[in-house]
């Protein structure tokens, strides 16, 4: 596994470095522009900086997906699939590497957010010290949230990022099996569209079937029973105070299916054309 991870890193580091570097430059440019407080340019800088910050991890995940296709089902796939290693293990290395990159990208995003804050605060006339701002944000969150919920929230956010490579890789692998493999990248794109529709349906079913949500209760945030069906029957008055969470287990289940099915694809369904 270590050897597989080593070569994942060696093969993708240049591409990831360029992608992350360009986005970091955009954030810095946005920061500088917003700090100038010039009309038009400063608001543009705020927008560009925020977008670059927000898309850093997703862009790197998409770059890894392109590499996943190239290294598994395009020309270089012939080398990958000729290795005397079970396919599921090679796939596991790719998922682990994508997870490491995602976590690293989120950490870099946090760091860049601190820099970005200096420019934004200058524009807004607020305190420019990012640590003061972060401490204030932390205090306001912990004032209404228990430690358990805070940890759950962090795990939830991380899981929402980590399921994307799993779903992208599923679409690429399933779309590269017979007979879709003759369509080139068309197969993966088709499977991704089907997966997107399936995830929307699964999320919707989850909202109706699993009756719980997140809401403020007695001054703190917590899990509450919540039925979307009842809420709709009563005219939808309660939806603004409660965030339904029933979609979450459904989406996680779908991702577990994607993991299982992609392992099966690597072990039994490889068809390079």
């Amino acid at each position: 596994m270590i050897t597989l991870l080593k070569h994942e890193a060696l093969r993708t580091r240049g591409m990831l470095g360029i992608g992350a570097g360009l986005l970091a430059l955009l954030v810095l440019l946005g920061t500088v522009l917003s700090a100038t407080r010039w009309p038009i340019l400063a608001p543009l800088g705020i927008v560009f900086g925020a977008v670059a910050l927000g898309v850093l991890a997703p862009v790197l995940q998409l770059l890894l997906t392109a590499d996943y296709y190239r290294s598994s089902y395009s020309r270089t796939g012939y080398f990958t699939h000729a290795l005397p290693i079970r396919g599921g293990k090679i796939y596991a290395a790719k998922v682990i590497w994508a997870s490491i990159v995602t976590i690293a990208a989120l950490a870099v995003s946090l760091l860049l957010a601190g820099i970005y804050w200096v420019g934004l605060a200058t524009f807004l006339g607020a305190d420019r010290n990012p640590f003061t701002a972060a401490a204030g944000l932390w205090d306001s969150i912990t004032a209404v949230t228990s430690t358990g919920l805070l940890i759950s929230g962090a795990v939830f956010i991380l899981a929402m990022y980590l399921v994307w490579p799993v779903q992208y890789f599923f679409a690429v692998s399933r779309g590269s099996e017979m007979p879709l493999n003759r369509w080139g990248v068309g197969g993966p794109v088709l499977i991704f569209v089907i997966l997107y529709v399936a995830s929307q349906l699964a999320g919707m079913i989850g909202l109706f079937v699993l009756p719980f949500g997140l809401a403020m209760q007695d001054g703190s945030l917590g899990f509450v029973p919540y039925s979307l069906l009842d809420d709709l029957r009563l005219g939808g008055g309660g939806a603004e105070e409660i965030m339904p969470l029933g979609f979450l287990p459904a989406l996680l289940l779908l991702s577990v299916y994607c993991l299982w099915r992609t392992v099966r694809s690597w072990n039994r369904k490889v068809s390079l054309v």
Partner: protein
Amino acid sequence: MRYGATKALDDLDLDLPPGQIVGLLGENGCGKTTLLKILAGVLSDYTGEVRVGGYAPGPDSKALVSFLPDTSFLPDAARVRYCLELYADFFADFDEEKARDLIGFFGLNESSRLKEMSKGMREKVQIALAMSRNAKVFLLDEPISGVDPAARDVILDGILRNLADDSLLLISTHLIHDLEQVLDAVVMMRHGKVVLSGQSDDLRSRYSASLDQIFKETYR
């Protein structure tokens, strides 16, 4: 094995013993590449039974098989030196000294990037890597097509330079004239079926003709 309505391989029954060089011959689209891909374990949608060294295509058979596909299968940006590291890391039977010897024999530079090389040079790198494994089975898909006649001889010399006596070398081609002297046996395919197979000497004496002439006659 089917591609849509087309049968790529049809009722194929083949047993290839070790210790020989076998030419897999036939027109484009006759099923040569499909057969090699199945044996290499990169094509799984077939029906029937396949065994390589006693194993069904999978990690165990891949440990015995060195596969050279008819495409550039290494990362374009990689240097030759990195490709050597790649093979050394993943194939227990890879002989790095043998690979360096072949790289030198082909006149290649280890610090060159693949994308800076001509098609013939890249093919030589891939052959140096594939042939430097102490594999039981070598599957080479059209290794000399697309290169000039002078380079073909050098490539063929490189392929045969370190080949062990007990290994099976299955080499697909339609350039039979260039391989005539080195083939111990041939398998001629058409429309996914074997139309003629046997030891080269037996076929030559049976038809009183060279393999090249037999080939032309078979596909007339």
